């Protein structure tokens, strides 16, 4: 479960002050699929980053499964991410020097659990995204869609309770985008993960349980679909 209360994020540059999020409050129950939409600059990606503990809010609180993450240090957040949060990036963000299997296995190795059992799980996940034969291929040898599928497999490696996806189909054509969407939703169904997506993709939004729209850093609508 995700509980966000009075979240404010302000950024100060050398010349001016920008309020990216203004008093955002909402809750996401377990296993819900939430789409966060809004125009460019509305604060969607910032909100997602804060939910992942990739940055700290200026004020307000974020609770993930009962833990207030706003009080944690950077390393504590990293450990939390390793255990509870899966992340899918718009630009895939695979490590170019690791092959597909190694990229999927990376979260387990970072938490010190890169054992045989985990390797098997990584292979199974690659299989479930249809890339078993490409396990030894490097990102440079994979298409955009294939890279994103590896990214999805990686995001599910640690069986996270929360999956955050930032424009997961943003860099893909419609066919690949649809395929990626189906994979995410299937894995979400299988594992009961809470899924929060930032997206412009109408198709994605239609498959969500709920849509939260942001404008100028505020929630302007929050509808169950």
């Amino acid at each position, binding site marked *: 479960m995700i509980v966000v209360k009075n979240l404010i994020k302000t950024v100060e540059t050398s010349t001016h002050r920008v309020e990216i999020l203004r008093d955002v409050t909402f809750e996401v129950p377990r296993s819900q699929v939430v789409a966060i939409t809004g125009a460019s600059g509305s604060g969607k990606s910032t909100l997602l980053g804060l939910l992942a503990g*990739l940055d700290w809010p200026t004020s307000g609180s974020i609770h993930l499964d009962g833990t207030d993450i706003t009080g944690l240090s950077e*390393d504590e957040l*990293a*450990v939390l991410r390793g255990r509870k949060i899966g*992340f899918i990036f718009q630009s895939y963000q695979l*490590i170019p*020097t690791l092959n597909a299997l*190694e990229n999927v296995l*990376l979260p387990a190795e970072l938490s010190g659990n890169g054992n045989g059992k985990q390797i098997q799980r990584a292979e199974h996940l690659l299989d479930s995204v249809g890339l078993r034969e490409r396990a030894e291929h490097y990102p440079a040898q994979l298409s955009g869609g294939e890279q994103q599928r590896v990214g999805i497999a990686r995001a599910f490696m640690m069986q996270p309770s929360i999956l955050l996806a930032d424009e997961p189909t943003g860099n893909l054509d419609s066919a690949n985008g649809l395929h990626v969407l189906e994979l995410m939703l299937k894995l979400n169904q299988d594992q009961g993960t809470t899924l929060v997506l930032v997206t412009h993709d109408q198709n994605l939004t239609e498959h969500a349980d709920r849509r939260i729209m942001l404008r100028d850093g505020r929630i302007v609508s929050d509808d169950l679909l």
Partner: protein
Amino acid sequence: MNFAFRMALLDAKASRGRFLFIVLAIAAGVAALTGVKGFSESVRYTLFKEARTLMGADLMIRMNSLPNEAEQAFLKTLAEKGIDHTHVTETVSMAASGPESTPVLSSIKAADLQKYPFYGVLEFDPPSPPITADTVSVSEDLLFRLSVKVGDSIKVGAHEFRIVAVSRKEPDRMTTGFTLGPRVLMSREGFERTGLNVFGSRATQRILLRLPAESDVEAIRSEIRDTFRRRGRVIDYTQANPTLSRNMERASSFLAMVSLIALIVGGVGVATSIESHIQQRMDHVAIMKCLGGSSRRVMQVYAAQSLMLGVAGSLVGVLCGFVAQSIFPQFLAGYFDVDIDLVLSWKPAVQGISVGVLTTLLFTLPPLLSITRIRPALIFRRDLPESRSESRSPRALVRGSLAPVLSVLAIALGIWLIAVWMSGSSRVGSYFAGGLIGSIVVLAAIAKMVMIALRHAVTRWSSRLSPVVRQGVANLYRPGTHVTAILVALGVGVMFTLTVQLLQRSLLDQLRLSAPPDSPNVFLVNVVSAHKDGLWELIRKQPGIIEVPNASPAIAGQLSRINGTPVEEIQLSEGEQRYFRTQFALTWSVEIPKATEILSGSWWPESVAESLVSVEEDAADALKLTVGDTLEWSVQGRSLSARVTNIRRTDAGRLGANNQFILNPSALRDFPVIYYGAIRVRPDAVTSLQRVVFESYPTVTVVNAADVLDIIQSVVDRISLTVRFLSAFAILGGVIILASAVAGTRYRRMREVAVLKTIGATRGKIVRIFSLEFLIIGVAAGAIGATLATIFSVIVIDRLFHAPFVVAWLPLAAATLSTGLIAVAAGWAASFRILGEKPLEVLRQAEN
């Protein structure tokens, strides 16, 4: 395989070019270090293996006077037990080729060539020359100095000899220590005929002994010690020539310090390269942190990478060190007369690898710690401004600023530890580490200021400068160029190399200049009583003579008692023990010597019957003497006793300042003395004086101070060459760093070249822009290094001589210019291919 090492290896595959530079930067320093240490091991091994050859015997008794009757009888009894012995005499004298030739100060060795040496082989050209009472073999430089050849005649002392060979190898030459001038080898009969073997002369006598196999060396040593006591020092071959070993050890430690400079320069290169590498890997670090990697876990990956690079660089360095080790004998050619066995010992290799890896890890600390500051949100936003929540707690703030400070302190501590280890002395190591760290800090500060000043100057006069100059200077501030680090790395090497060169010349110049203006410049040695008056009269008649003080008498004496107590029963430190071992030149004087201050007691009146002695300050301190104490010496088998009447201090630059004991005339009245003279002659009249004196008194040695300084100069030159060879490794390290930085900015340069070409720049213009960039770096490094070298030399000369340092502009200009040219060459070597890239191709890749 461990996750960190596996990730490190996979990451390294994509950065081979950059890592090659890191490996080379470390290898340069390790190569210098293992070359020095390895050569030292080889010399130690050779000294041990060739110990008998280097001594020419199993045992050697070194004395300053001929064996007395008891000692000769003892040697006879040893002979009856099968212990053969032979006698070698070494002294200095004049050698000349004819009445018109200028005599040359030479080292004379006389031996029974039927026996000498017991071990090792003398090599002559032609081989097996007949060295008799009338023939000699000489070193090649004597032929050159006297313009003679094999078959010609030379005169040594009172006898004429025909040269029958050139001495190519005398393996025991090193055992005698420092030799003065060219060498002459003659038979004992020949030596008798020279008349140089006068009573009281300062010749060194060596009694060489060959023991039968299975002899009890220790027992025989003990017998010899009991017989010769303090008159002779007993050395056996197992001590492997202690003086030489000690000197080699000192030289090795010093040269290891010099190599350390190259290694530290390499460390600077490692720091800049790893920093660039982590900058390029920021996204990877951010991704790993997003995926749950803590800072520590991520740091482990890059630490593992640094470790692997350190090991690789060290291994390459050790291999190169073996090659460097084989070059050292070239510098020392002529110094050793045995072939040095080059051994690949594990100890220098382990030392080199340990120090190389440690240096790599130390210098990787600051960039590694920067990983903690890479935030995972970087994935979304590159230009992350500092948000208030970042400075959330004082603890975090303190921790953030403490880390860089601690890492720098760790580096300084590491350098100190390595310096202490390599030098074998905490004092020497501390001075060296302090000096090196201080130099780097000062260099970095000056480099930074120079760059800031340059930038301001170019900005200010921008409109008056050509685009080539503006662009060339602007390139210095391109991200990733690490200009300050390059200036420090190159500058350290230039500074050290130039300091050695500047001091090498000026030290000897200062020696010449610092002598008081009325100091003597010609010394007369080994003047027997019978020749004294006639010689002095002859000298006074010669042109160019400025001052001829009276001859000083001297006789060799060894302290035997202090206040009636035998010296063997007096406890002194190891260093002070030399006062009991040394044969002192005891002289007399009626008047107080010039520039002398009486610290306690008083000088004696002109005629006093009692034997009195004046003691020099240092000797008095060491022997804990006061006015009224009684000293006794053993002089030519007799006893000489005198009462201390004063303790004095003489100006160190004066002749005679070294006379520890000066007696009144009464004390030496009944002793056969040798006379010494110190005269002042116009420099252009010295050689004619030497000819005239040699013609009438060939047994008198006439030493021109200028010649002695020339000999010292040639030794200093050779040492300086060796040191400069090693410090060149530091410059090499700096060049590698420059090339690495240039290669690291390759893609930016390619884009820049593509854009410049697109807007109309010719290849020539582009070449000028980049050349100017490299030239500025090199010239700045050279100028800063040269300036610091001058400052350092000024300080040293002032401290040692309290004299002004004369700036030698030519070496400074040469160093600055040559560093500039080296930088241009290195820069182009690392980037010449970018000129040929097609602009469209490059720009398309940039878009993608």
